[in-house]
Structures are given as C-alpha cells and as structure tokens.
C-alpha cells in the first residue's frame, strides 16, 4: 500500500476515533471538570433538598410527601457508581432525616 494512502487511512481513522470519543464521553466531563453530574436524579435531588431551610414551615402532608420522595430517590441513587453513590446517599439521608424530624415534631403537636 502506498505511503499516501496509508497516511490518509490513518487520518480518517483518527478523525473517526475523535468523533466517537466526543459522542461517547460522559456529559459531565464538559462541566469545568465538576464530578457532580446533571442527570435526571440530580434534578429531583435538588428539588427535594433545596427546601430544607423551610422544613419547619411545611404541613404534615407536605413533609410526608418529601420523605416519600427521598425514599423513592434513594433506590435510584443506590445504582450510581462510587463515590458518587456514597456522597449522594449521605446528602439525601440528611435531607430525609430533617424532614422526618420536622414531620414527627409537627405530628406530636
């Protein structure tokens, strides 16, 4: 095979490899190197845990719903790879515990 043809094949191969790498690469790698992903579970996680500052202002029903949402999300988070799994579970547990705690306080009243 002539040198020019080999060189052209090599270039095409490199280009294909580069395009595949872009398509296959995980989305989060483009976020300034942040390991904290932007996947679906993260949206739900943000939505649930963004309300912790107002936990004592929610009704018993609202708190029960938040605790249930935490429990539902837990099963999804458990499927993540380490250490994201461990870290997110811990964060989720802190939110859940706070809501459960506020729930118990309100129910006792």
């Amino acid at each position, binding site marked *: 095979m002539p040198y020019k043809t080999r060189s052209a094949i090599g270039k095409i191969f490199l280009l294909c490899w580069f395009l595949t790498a872009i398509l296959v690469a995980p989305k989060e790698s483009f*976020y*300034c*190197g*942040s*390991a*904290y992903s932007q996947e679906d579970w993260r949206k739900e*996680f*943000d939505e649930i*845990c*963004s*309300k*912790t*500052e*107002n*936990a*004592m*202002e929610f009704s018993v029903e609202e708190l029960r719903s938040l605790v249930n949402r935490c429990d539902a999300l837990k099963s999804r988070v458990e499927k993540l790879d380490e*250490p*994201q799994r*461990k*870290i997110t579970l*811990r*964060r989720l547990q*802190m*939110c859940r*515990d*706070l809501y*459960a*705690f506020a729930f118990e*306080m309100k129910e*006792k009243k």
Partner: protein
Amino acid sequence: MLKKTFLVGVLVLGIAGVSLAQTGVKKKRPLPFEYGRVILNSYSEEARLSPVVFDHWLHRAKFTCRVCHVDLTFAMKTGTTTIKASDNMKGYYCGTCHNGKMIFQGVKIFESCSKKFLPEDVKRCDRCHSLGKNVKREYDFAKFSERFPKERFGNGIDWEKSEAAGFINPVDFLEGVSIPRKPLSTQKDFALSPKLESMPEIIFSHKKHTVWNGCELCHPEIFMGVKKGATKYSMVEIFEGRYCGVCHSTVAFPLLDCQRCHTKPVQQ
C-alpha cells in the same frame, strides 16, 4: 543513705501516683494555630504517606461549615468519612476544589491527589500529607489573622466579628455542587435555663448558627429535640463532645469561654 534515697523515691512516686490518679494527665490546650486541627489517616499510612493535617482555620475563613459538611459530606467526626485518593482524583471531597483547575479569590487551587506525579510533585503531596514533617505552610497563621478581631480562646479569633467586619466572607455556594436554597426565615433567639441557679441563662441564637450551618447539619443528628426543654443537656455530655460540644470543643469557640453562651444576667 541508700535507705533514705529509697524512701524519697517511694514518696515522690507515691505523690505523683496519687495526683495522677485524681486528675489524670492534663490535656495540653492547643495553641491558636493548632485549634481545630484534624488528622486524617484512613488510608494515608497504608499508602506509605504521612497522615493529612487539616487546619480548620484556613478553610473556615473561606467557606461556611455547610459547604463542606453538608454539600461535600465531610463527616463531623474525624476519621468517619474515609476519603480515598481515588475519590479526590474523581473530583469529590477535597478534590471538588483541589483539582488544579478551580480558581478561588484569584488563586488556582492546587490538585490534591493525582495518578501520575513527578518527583517534584512530592512537595505538593506534602502540603496535605504533612504529619511529622517540617513543611513550610503557604499561609502563616499569625500573618493571616493579624487584623482579625481577637478572642481569648480557640484560634484567638472572633470569627463572628471577623465576618461582620468584612475580614472574612465565607462562601456558601459551590457551583455545580451546592443546591440553591431559599433564604431561611429568621427564628427568634431563645433562652435555655442552666441547671445551676447561679449561672447566667444561655441565649441561643438560631440566626448565628444557621448562617454557617443550615438546618440539616444539626437536626436531627446532633440535636434530636426542638421543643424547648424536651432534651436535657448536661455540661458533662457537652464536654464529652456531644450536642454543642460537637463543634464547640473542636472548631468553634471552646467551652472554656463560658460567657459566650451563658450571656443573660441572673435575675436577683
């Protein structure tokens, strides 16, 4: 002569024994730059590295407690987070900021752990893995804190006043990591009655505590009850590192500073 020496020896040992038996070995009070120091050694020695020396004073001047202890999930008890170098390399724990890319207050934050390193990178490893080594710190405590309002104990710094005066401005949000939260509705300060009648009442400020901590850092893990008087706290338990003692015997102003909590004058 020999008998006399023997008797003196027995007497000295006896006195020392009795005094130690009554009071134990006196714990050395940390120096201002040592207060809040944490030694992390979950895997360091296993990896033939010195344990990590973490100084709270530098980090707490730049970030709120919540950023690290809630958002990055560093546990409140030393050694329970079990951080691996690979976790840092993947951008978690220390590696969230210490990734060699993040620029904070105009300074690029050095990378914490990396798979590949050159011999000259040993100095970088030593910046954290420094226990037992004579490592020159990049930040000098005395110089760093010289303008800060002073306090008697702990780091010798009044952190609250330092923030109020604008000497520090701890960041409460890390883009891509922290969750945007609504501002906390201000809760009123409340008084807690001490067990000893002669002690001034404790005025607890939720506002002062939540500004750096948020809610979930304390409730329910550290404080189970919110109903006033429902939980009885004893100073013995607090000195053992429970309740207020979780922070106020380690990082926040120490328990020796009685008047910082027991502030309300006794009613005659």
